[in-house]
């Protein structure tokens, strides 16, 4: 809870910019042919190049450049005709070359934007630049027999291609920062630039935070907060840091420009020891790599390979499938869910019914099972078969839900379950009339009530018929027959 009174907090305006690192979804590393596979045995995905052995040289992975270009386009950036890799020099044990290959003076792309939506209001957040770089290895300080004496290094991640996306200081609240990161993540997943898996470190976030009195013309002094590697941390850390700075200013202090680390366990930001970040990186163009020249033709080629972006997909779902804005929003939340929906429609499912079933039944079951759409046991075509049965009246909607549950649990197809459980809807008027007559014959009292004008009793008879048919009777047929029999 806030340590400051709301009146105090509201006098200040936070100014936030995010620096987001995403792992580009390539099979191999940025400058060598080693696999980027996560979770391999330590140091198994390494070679002279990514280990920085003497004499080894980097060669740019074309696919990584393509993905970075795609990301640039999706973020509406201008891709520069000429960009250049530079060396960022610093010593660190998991940095085998003694420098990181990054882009400095000439980034790949500049001047983009991301549109976020918050409580129905839209806002454009500027993207200053997008550049490529390679990742470092990972220092492991515990978990080994001799961890007390030594640190261990796993270089599997070393050389993994990253894109760094730097936003303008356009964000004004932690909620906006959250929405920005969420939208960015959605765009990058959609365009298959990155799997954005935060647990595996595919998406990492640092924030530049300052506060100023509302209406003040200039930004306050900023602090850089590192290690915001989940959405939860981002919100918490930003809230903490904003209040820390306001508190500092309110008590007559000043904010120091520094790098702070979000301490997850303590729930606060803490200054990093100055030695850990006070670097003169001595950037200079990397003489081992040629400048990156990108022709209009190349841009066009990448543009053509660009998948549909979320906004365009929502618009198309509204237009082509007549979905409600709510359903369109739910179904386009991730590209895989949208693809699932469209696959079901292509397999013959009526669009609105499919939207409804996916948004309600499917997502609820996936949620309960803690699964993503990629692991959904019901294939789109199987869902389409089920919906066709409901649509044609072969089973009731109520049975449909039961069948779906079984499909989800067992992976069996609808037809098999319907047959095995005898759920086929009974529309045979003869069979239903026979049951209706039996039901009516068993309850002379209720027949009398009905005939004396108590129409509420009709529901009792319907219920009895449905019970006898285990819910499989066509409700419309039951109504008609009962009305006729009772009128006799």
């Amino acid at each position, binding site marked *: 809870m806030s340590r400051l009174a709301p009146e105090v907090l509201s006098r200040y305006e936070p100014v936030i910019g995010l620096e987001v690192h995403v792992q580009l979804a390539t099979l191999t590393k940025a400058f060598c042919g080693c696999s980027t596979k996560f979770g391999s045995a330590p140091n198994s995905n390494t070679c*002279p190049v990514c*280990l*920085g*052995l*003497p*004499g*080894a*040289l*980097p*060669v*740019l992975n074309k696919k990584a450049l393509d993905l970075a270009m795609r990301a640039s386009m999706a973020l509406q950036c201008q891709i520069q005709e000429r960009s250049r890799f530079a*060396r960022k*020099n610093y*010593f660190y*044990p998991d940095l*085998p*070359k*003694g*420098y990181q290959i990054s882009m400095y003076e000439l980034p790949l792309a500049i001047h983009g934007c991301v549109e976020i939506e918050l409580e129905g209001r839209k806002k454009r957040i500027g993207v200053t630049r997008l550049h490529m770089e390679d990742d470092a290895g990972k220092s492991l300080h515990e978990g080994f027999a001799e961890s007390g004496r030594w640190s261990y*290094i796993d270089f599997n991640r070393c050389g993994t291609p990253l894109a760094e996306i730097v936003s303008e200081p356009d964000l004004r609240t932690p909620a906006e920062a959250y929405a920005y990161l969420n939208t960015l993540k959605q765009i990058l997943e959609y365009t298959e630039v990155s799997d954005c898996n935060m647990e595996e470190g595919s998406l990492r976030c640092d924030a530049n935070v300052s506060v100023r009195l509302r209406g003040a013309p200039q930004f306050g002094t900023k602090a850089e907060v590192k290690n915001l590697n989940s959405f939860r941390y981002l919100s918490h850390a930003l809230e903490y840091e904003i209040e820390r700075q306001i508190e500092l200013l309110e008590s007559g202090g000043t904010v120091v420009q520094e790098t702070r680390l979000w301490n997850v366990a303590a729930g606060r930001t803490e200054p990093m020891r100055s*030695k850990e970040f006070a670097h*003169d990186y*001595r*950037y*200079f163009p990397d*003489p*081992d*790599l*040629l400048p990156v020249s990108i022709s209009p033709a190349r841009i066009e080629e990448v543009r053509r390979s660009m998948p549909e972006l979320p906004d365009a997909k929502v618009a198309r779902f509204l237009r082509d499938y007549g979905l409600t804005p709510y359903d369109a929003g739910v179904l386009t939340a991730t590209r895989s869910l949208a693809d699932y929906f469209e696959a079901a429609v292509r397999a013959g499912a009526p669009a609105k019914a499919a939207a409804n079933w996916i948004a309600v039944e499917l997502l609820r079951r996936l949620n309960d099972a803690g699964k993503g759409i990629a692991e959904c046991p019901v294939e789109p075509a199987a869902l389409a078969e089920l919906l066709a049965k409901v649509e044609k009246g072969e089973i009731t909607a109520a049975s449909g839900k039961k069948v779906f549950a079984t499909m989800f649990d067992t992976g069996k197809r609808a037809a098999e379950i319907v047959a095995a459980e005898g759920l086929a809807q009974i529309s045979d008027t003869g069979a239903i009339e026979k049951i209706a007559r039996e039901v009516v014959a068993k309850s002379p009292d209720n027949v009398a009530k009905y005939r004396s004008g108590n129409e509420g009793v009709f529901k009792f008879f319907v219920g009895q018929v449905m019970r006898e048919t285990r819910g499989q009777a066509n409700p419309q047929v039951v109504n008609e027959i009962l009305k006729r029999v009772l009128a006799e």
Partner: protein
Amino acid sequence: MSGAAPWTIAGVRAALAAKKISARELAAEFYSRIDRRNAELNAYLTLSPERAYAQADRIDAAVSRGETLPPLAGVPMAIKDVISTRGVRTTCASKMLEDYIPPYDATAAERLERAGAVFLGKTNCDEFAMGGSNENSAYGPVRNPVALDRVPGGSSGGSAAAVAAGLAVAALGTDTGGSIRQPGAFCGIPGLMPTYGRVSRYGLVAFASSLDKIGPFAGNVADIAAVTAAIAGHDTYDSTSAAVPVPDYAAGLEKPVQGLRIGVPEDYFGKGLDPEVQEKIHAGIALLERLGCRRIPLRMPHTDYAIATYYIIATAEASSNLARYDGVRYGLRAPGATLTEMYRQTRDRGFGSEVKRRIMLGTYVLSAGYYDAYYLRAQRVRALIARDFSDAFEKVDAIITPTAPTTAFRLGEKTADPLQMYLADVYTVTGSLAGVPGISVPCGKTRAGLPVGLQIFGPHFSEERVLQIAHAFEAAGGFSL
């Protein structure tokens, strides 16, 4: 075979084909020569008989099967110790890498092996190729086989001395600011610096990445052409290697030089040039004129700035390239209580003083606040120097200069004054900065019997022409003017 005419690549080939000697016997012969001479010369740091005999045996098997032999079949070669060789220690003449054994071959080494060469061993040099006298080796200086009290030049002094002393038929060196041409001149053998991008740098331990080139030493120009042909060409492992076709250098050697325009820049004949060297170079130019070349006077106005420019760019790149020697993963690790202390101790003990000097210089010129004044300005001057060359090549087909202002100096003569040492690079660094090919060929000896080197520059990727002129010069007796 000692005492007889020196082995050439063609001679090795003929002897193997005629079964006068096997590749294994030839390798053994060279190892026995090395046994006799190396203690004195210190040209080799590491011998690799296991690999050499395995390579030789493969050639002998091919001979016995009557197969067509690859171009360098059985040729005993030396490789400068900054070029990575799989399974063979590669020290860069540094304490830092005393026990470092690369798990992979440099592309140039791999291509030599494929061409049939036999790797006798790794040759001494200035530490990380930084120096012009081979006195900066952590394993002691190399002596010049022509005059044992003199330096062989550097940084590829071991390779030059090995070839000059008959301890290898040919050798690979590397040239960043003159490190092939100047030792070639000092030891009296030809040595070629190819165009930047002509030979892959993959596996060459980097000193200054935008300037480093691998090139050959040999006893004659035809052998230089043969080794160059074997190692040249595009390599997907080096982004800066050029996808320019490799001509048949051997076929171009005999073309007449009649009518070629040779530029003689007066900027290379000023203060500091030893009069005896100047005399020989003029005699060399006169010889080329007699062969039908047209002499054209030139001005290359930015020549004076080349040394300063070179030492800013080369050291800047070196400061970054040598950051990886931190004691963490391979090479020397000196203990330290903290990580920083371990870094400091390791780099203090691992590097010699010239390497440290250059790392400090390079770190300085890249520092915040100095970058624009030094590194960026040096890049601009580099472009001007490159333009001097491209302007010149509008008017001439090749440029002829002395390789070095002096002949081989005495061991210890310049070690106290690094700046004097740097100035010895004055005629070679220009072409290095421009990225053009340059060869040094012997051009007679001074009265004291010390070899003089004549340097021939050509436009980018004109190795064929440079070799053609060098070959004509050699054929006309220019080497012993």
